[in-house]
């Protein structure tokens, strides 16, 4: 059994982590009639989920315990997250797998990375090691943290590095959220640049989500009036779970393999220069509307494909003008080209869905061999009450837009050396800033050439 250990760092990471396990468990516990498969198949699915993300003992009546390590510099959020899990009555966090101190890092990345990180290192790694020993096989780590915060990003980036040193062969997937364009913290762009560049060196892949797009999904698709962080976290976790939950992948003709973290990473991020992934889900809607909606595979996949080539994060307001195959003489295209895609369909009549539109070589960069372009999975078991749903995990150019904006803002501040002294006083050098800018500029340059 290939298990995934989740490392939750900071307020954002812990809140998302708590929601993620809740989402996984909620999906497992949907009514049998909604699963669309036999009880036996559903039981298999359930067991796979529990083995991947939880430790549990079939013979005892104990609740499953999340395979998770929690880190924060303040005890408040961790305590709250653990209490929420307990309140659900369906799962728990393992005991003594939490590390916290009494004081935050005050939104200062350098304080987190250079001060808190090294102090916490030994204790945290012990927790990670202990969690790893509970698994027959560690498929990899899922690390959750915010880009722009102080503790989460600084300590998180540091821990990510430690995990890489300790488990050089394990796969590390980071989930990060772009801050709002009009951010709440003035130095958020510094923090984001530093986090991202450091993660890019240690992690195998970064799943990137934008607060702005998530916000739009909440307001336009889910019809939520007053959007809270909880709502946004729910969407994030829905997106994560939709590709992490078990599904057989059609790796070769007549040969399928489970979508373990290793398999996903192997397909998506084999090229060391391209590590940014985006998730596109369809459909997204409020629970009330699900009952009254039916979808056809054809329609869903047509939308999803356009979302891919137009770089849209949701099904509403897609630019349908963008077409594949309009290449300029110099080889640049108007559509967002991909390196690799993972398409997973879940629910009713998955085997009838025609996915050939995603195998079109024009979607992909020319040097990508066919075997590396599209990997697809079909899971007849429904996902989260959706009779039909599809998720596309994509390594494509669509991420560099927001990245570019962010680097631009950070560079503007850096050119006047604004707030830099607050970072250097904790031991971060100006060269570190420059290195980070170079790393990310290189990423943008690589993706632009796709």
């Amino acid at each position: 059994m290939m298990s995934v250990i989740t490392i939750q760092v900071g307020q954002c990471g812990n809140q998302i982590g708590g929601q993620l396990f809740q989402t996984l468990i909620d999906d497992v516990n949907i009514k049998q009639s909604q699963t669309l498969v036999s009880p036996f198949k559903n039981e298999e699915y359930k067991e796979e989920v529990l083995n991947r993300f939880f430790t549990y003992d079939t013979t005892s009546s104990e609740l499953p315990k999340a395979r998770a390590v929690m880190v924060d510099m303040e005890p408040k959020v961790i305590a709250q997250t653990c209490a929420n899990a307990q309140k659900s009555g369906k799962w728990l966090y393992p005991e003594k797998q939490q590390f916290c101190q009494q004081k935050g890092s005050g939104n200062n990345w350098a304080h987190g990375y250079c001060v808190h990180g090294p102090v916490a290192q030994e204790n945290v790694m012990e927790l990670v090691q202990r969690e790893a020993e509970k698994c027959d096989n560690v498929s990899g780590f899922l690390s959750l943290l915010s880009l722009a915060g102080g503790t989460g990003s600084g300590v998180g980036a540091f821990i990510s590095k430690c995990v890489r040193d300790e488990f050089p062969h394990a796969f590390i997937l980071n989930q990060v959220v772009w801050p709002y364009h009009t951010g709440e913290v003035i130095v958020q762009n510094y923090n984001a640049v530093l986090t991202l560049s450091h993660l890019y060196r240690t992690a195998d892949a970064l799943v990137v989500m934008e607060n702005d797009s998530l916000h739009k999904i909440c307001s336009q698709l889910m019809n939520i009036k007053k959007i809270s962080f909880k709502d946004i976290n729910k969407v994030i976790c829905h997106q994560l779970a939709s590709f992490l939950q078990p599904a057989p992948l059609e790796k070769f003709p007549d040969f399928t393999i489970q979508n373990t973290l290793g398999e996903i990473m192997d397909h998506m991020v084999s090229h060391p220069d391209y590590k940014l992934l985006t998730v596109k889900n369809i459909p997204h809607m409020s629970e009330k509307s699900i009952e009254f909606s039916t979808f056809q595979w054809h329609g869903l996949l047509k939308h999803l494909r356009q979302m891919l080539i137009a770089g849209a994060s949701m099904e509403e307001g897609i630019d349908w003008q963008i077409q594949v195959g309009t290449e300029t003489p110099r080889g640049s295209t108007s559509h967002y080209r991909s390196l690799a895609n993972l398409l997973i369909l879940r629910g009713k009549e998955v085997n009838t869905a025609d996915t050939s539109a995603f195998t079109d070589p024009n979607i992909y960069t020319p040097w990508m061999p066919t075997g590396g372009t599209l990997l697809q999975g079909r899971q007849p078991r429904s996902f989260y009450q959706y009779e039909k749903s599809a998720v596309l995990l994509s390594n494509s150019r669509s991420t560099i837009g927001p990245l570019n904006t962010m680097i631009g803002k950070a560079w503007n501040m850096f050119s006047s050396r604004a707030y830099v002294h607050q970072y250097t006083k904790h031991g971060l050098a100006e060269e570190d800033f420059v290195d980070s800018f170079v790393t990310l500029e290189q990423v943008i340059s690589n993706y632009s050439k796709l």
Partner: protein
Amino acid sequence: MAQVKETIELLTKVLNRNGTSKIKAEIFRLAKFNDEDATESFWKLLFELLYFCKYGVIDEVTIKAYSELSREELAVYVKREMQALGFTSYAFSSLPNDMSQGSRELLLAFAWLLCKGSLIDKFMDKCASPVEEDLSVYQLNNLDDSNFNNHLTANKPLNPAQKVQHLQYLNGKLRSSLRRLYALQQQKNKLQHKILKLLEKDNDRLQCMLTWKKQEDVFWKWMMTFYNIPPDSIRLMNSARKQLEEAIMKYESVIVQLEEIWESQRDGISTQELDYLLASINMEISLQQANLALDDTETMLNHRDPHLSYIKANKQGKKLTNLTEPSRYSFESKEQNDYGVDVRTEISQLEIQLQRLENELFKKQSNYKTELDNMASNIPDVICIQPMSC
């Protein structure tokens, strides 16, 4: 017999390694002297072993069942199962169900089960099975080689920059494949380690049992000394045998009587057999008659009832009456009705018969006329006046 204690200790070890609750060698010694303290342990041991004989395993269910069933239920269950296996000791069956006493009988029952149920062999069969089971080999079939080979080659000619990217991609792919391979290797090692541990445990169990096999005669010799302890046991046995002989003698005459009755009865056939025979003969006859009835005009003309039947003799009658002949031909005869013949077929049959009769009549009439004419022609001066045809 210092060796006895060791042997029994070995036996308790063998039992415990194979899943039964712990039992002390001392309990065996106590049981030999019919000590009450040993009773309960032996009931438990017997229960567990019987469960093992039936289901091939001693697991949580066994423990749970033992703790949830009442003493009486357990005792009755053990007694019944032992009986089913063929242990029919009267003394054992009449042990009190409250598990208060009778440890010696229980020890005997245990020894019987150990020997006759070939428990040790069954334990051995169970060993090393984790390896034999689940040895399904996963094979990667149907992998189209050509498909597989082209899997990662470039689709079209690439320029040098693109070639570099492609090679970098392949390099990355190789690295991640190696990492996954490494992870699988680690998993394999972990699982192998687990298997090794299981095997070691099995090995240990087997070793114990092998030693037991070598030493078990000591145990059986010790068991045999049972019969030396109660001084009156031989006398008891002799008296029991005498009782048995007397009983046989007592019933001898009854048996002879029964045999005589049987012999006499065998001469006469039982009424049931008779009934059966009669029914089948009647059936056969009526079947044959029904076949004949359609075309056997002669029988019809003779006014003979085709429905012959055998009538059962009265019960006392020793001989069967043979044929009886109903006086008149009648279609309403009982047997006929029983077959439920359709009226229309009956009518058509009758019509056919009528036709035949008329033909017959006509034929005979003309025959007789010609005969009469012939006769008349032989008599001179006579004119024959034929009668009116009717």
